[in-house]
C-alpha cells in the first residue's frame, strides 16, 4: 500500500522485483542505481552471498522529487530467486505496492519462470493479497541472448492475465527504465483509485508545521472503488472520499490522553515495571519532547539546568552525550550526591558541611539512612557502632 505521510509530506511506495534465480533482478537495480542521478537515489544495499547471489534482498531507495508539495519516494527491492530461499523471499513481499516479475527468456528457464510465478501468487496469498489486484508488470529479460523464446510464446505461458510486458536486457539497460516507469505509474494509479492510503514515514527534518495546509494531495475526484482485499473494517462510507482529506478538519482530533483501549490492547500489554528513580526523577524529562524536535540535539543549544545524575545499576554516574542534555560534561557524581538526589527529587544536595550544620532532625530519615553504608554483616555493624560510640565519647569527653 502506498504510504502517505502528511507530516513529512512524503508518498512512499514499495516495489519488488520478483523472479527465478539468475533472471536479472539485481541487475535491474544495479542499472537503475548506475544511471539515475546521485541526488535522486540512495545507496544500493545488497544482502548477498560471497558469490553475489542475493541472500535476502537488494534495496534501492529513489526519491524523484517533490510533486504538488509531496516528496515521491520509491523503495525498490529484489528477492532471492533461488527456490531454497523461499522463506526470506516471502518476507520481502510484506507491504508491497507493485511487482515487477523478471522472467528469463531462455527456453530452458521456462519451467523456473512458471514455478516462480506460481510461487509469487502463493506467497502473496499468504499475506492476504491477490495477484490480480496488485500492480504487476512482466519483464522478459535477456532478450539480447541468442535462441530466446519469442514474446508470443512467453506471453502464452506466463501472461494469462494480460498484464503489461516489456522486453529487456538488464545488462545493457534496455527496457529497464520502461519497466520501472510503468510499474510506478500503475502503483500511483492504483493509489489514486484506492480510498486507502496510509503510513507516514517521517523524516524529522522535513516536518512541517501544519499537517497539510495546502493540500498537495487532493482527494481523488472519482468515486473510489473499495479495494477488494483490504481489511473488512473499511467502512463503505469511506468509498466516497470526503472533502479535503488532507486538511486537519476531517481528522477526529486525537486527544493525547487516550482511554486505554482494553480490547485491542492485545499488543504487548507490557507490565509497567516500577522504574527506579532514574527514569522518573529527571526534571527535564518532561520537557524534552518538544525541544529537540526535528534536529538532533546539538551541543550547547539547550540551556538547561544541570540534570540530576543518572546512575546505572552499577552505581556509576554517566556523562551525558556531549550536548545531548546540558551541553557540558558531567563530573562523576559521588554516591552521596546520588543518594541525596534521589531523595530530594533532583535538587542538588547541600555539601557535607552544610548538612552537618543543619539540624539533623530536618533531614528525612531515608536520607540519613542513605548516608550510611546500607548493607553490612551483623558483626561488622556491631563493630562499626562500637567504633562510632567511641568516637562520640572521645568527642564529648565522656568517660
Amino acid at each position: 500500500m502506498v504510504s502517505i505521510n502528511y507530516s513529512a509530506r512524503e508518498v512512499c511506495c514499495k516495489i519488488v522485483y520478483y523472479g527465478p534465480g539468475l533472471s536479472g533482478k539485481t541487475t535491474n537495480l544495479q542499472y537503475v542505481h548506475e544511471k539515475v542521478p546521485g541526488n535522486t537515489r540512495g545507496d544500493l544495499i545488497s544482502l548477498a552471498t560471497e558469490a553475489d547471489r542475493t541472500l535476502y534482498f537488494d534495496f534501492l531507495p529513489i526519491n524523484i522529487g517533490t510533486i504538488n508539495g509531496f516528496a515521491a519516494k520509491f523503495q525498490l527491492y529484489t528477492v532471492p530467486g533461488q527456490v531454497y530461499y523461499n522463506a526470506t523471499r516471502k518476507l520481502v513481499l510484506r507491504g508491497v505496492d507493485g511487482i515487477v516479475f523478471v522472467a528469463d527468456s531462455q527456453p530452458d528457464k521456462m519451467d523456473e519462470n512458471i514455478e516462480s510465478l506460481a510461487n509469487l501468487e502463493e506467497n502473496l496469498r499468504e499475506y492476504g493479497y491477490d495477484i490480480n489486484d496488485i500492480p504487476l508488470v512482466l519483464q522478459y529479460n535477456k532478450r539480447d541472448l541468442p535462441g530466446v523464446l519469442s514474446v508470443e510464446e512467453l506471453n502464452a505461458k506466463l501472461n494469462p492475465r494480460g498484464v503489461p510486458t516489456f522486453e529487456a536486457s538488464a545488462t545493457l539497460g534496455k527496457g529497464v527504465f520502461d519497466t520501472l516507469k510503468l510499474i510506478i505509474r500503475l502503483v500511483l494509479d492504483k493509489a489514486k483509485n484506492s480510498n486507502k492510503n496510509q503510513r507516514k514515514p517521517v523524516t524529522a527534518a522535513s516536518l512541517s508545521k501544519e499537517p497539510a495546509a495546502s493540500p498537495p494531495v487532493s482527494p481523488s475526484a472519482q468515486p473510489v472503488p473499495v479495494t477488494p482485499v483490504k481489511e473488512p473494517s473499511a467502512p463503505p462510507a469511506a468509498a466516497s472520499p470526503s472533502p479535503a482529506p488532507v486538511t486537519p478538519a476531517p481528522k477526529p482530533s486525537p486527544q493525547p490522553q487516550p482511554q486505554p483501549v482494553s480490547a485491542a490492547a492485545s499488543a504487548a500489554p507490557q507490565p509497567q515495571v516500577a522504574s527506579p528513580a532514574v527514569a522518573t526523577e529527571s526534571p527535564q524529562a518532561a520537557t524534552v519532547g518538544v525541544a529537540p524536535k526535528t534536529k538532533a540535539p546539538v551541543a550547547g543549544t539547550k540551556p538547561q539546568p544541570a540534570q540530576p545524575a543518572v546512575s546505572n545499576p552499577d552505581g556509576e554516574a554517566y556523562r551525558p552525550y556531549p550536548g545531548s542534555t546540558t551541553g557540558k560534561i558531567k563530573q562523576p557524581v559521588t554516591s552521596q550526591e546520588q543518594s541525596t538526589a534521589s531523595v530530594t527529587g533532583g535538587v542538588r544536595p547541600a555539601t557535607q558541611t552544610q548538612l552537618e550544620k543543619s539540624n539533623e532532625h530536618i533531614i528525612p530519615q531515608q536520607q540519613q539512612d542513605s548516608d550510611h553504608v546500607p548493607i553490612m554483616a551483623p558483626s561488622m555493624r556491631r563493630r562499626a557502632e562500637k567504633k562510632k560510640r567511641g568516637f562520640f565519647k572521645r568527642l564529648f569527653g565522656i568517660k
Partner: protein
Amino acid sequence: MSEDSLILYEEEIKQIEKIISKLLKGAEAKCGLLVDKDGHLITRQGFTHSLDTTALAALLAGSFASTKEIAKLVGEPEFSVLFHQGKKDHIHMSLVGERSILVVIFDDRTTIGMVRLCAKEAATDLTKIFEQIKENSKASAQPSISGEFADGAQDKLDDIFQD
C-alpha cells in the same frame, strides 16, 4: 492488504517524538527510530544525521521479519525484543503494538538494562497512541492521492529515467 491502513498526522507524530525523546533522555541513548514492519521509517529522534535512516529502516525491518520466522521455527509466535551488540554501538529493537518496531541505538555510556527498561515504558505509551490512531482512522474518511500527483510523477520519471 490484510491490515488496517494507518494515517499519522502532525500531532500524532509529535506525541510519538516526545515519547522517543523521553526515552533517549532516560536511557542516555544516542538515537531512536520508529519503523514499521514494512520497512518504512515513521519517525526518528536523536543523533541520526550521520545515519542513512532509510536504509536502516529497511534493514531493521528485514532483520525483524527474519527473526520472526526463526521464532516460528522454534515454536514462538514472535520475538518481541532483539538486541545487537557491537564493539562500540549496540541496537535494541522492540515491538510496539502490532506493526511497528522501536529501535534504540546506544553505546557504552549506558547499559542494556537501562535501555530495555526505558524502551519498555516507551513501547507501552506508543502502543496506546497507536491504538488511538487506529480508532481515529476507522472513524475518518481516508484520502487518496490525486490524479494530478500521478501525472506529475510521470513527468518527473521521464526526466530522471533516461537511458
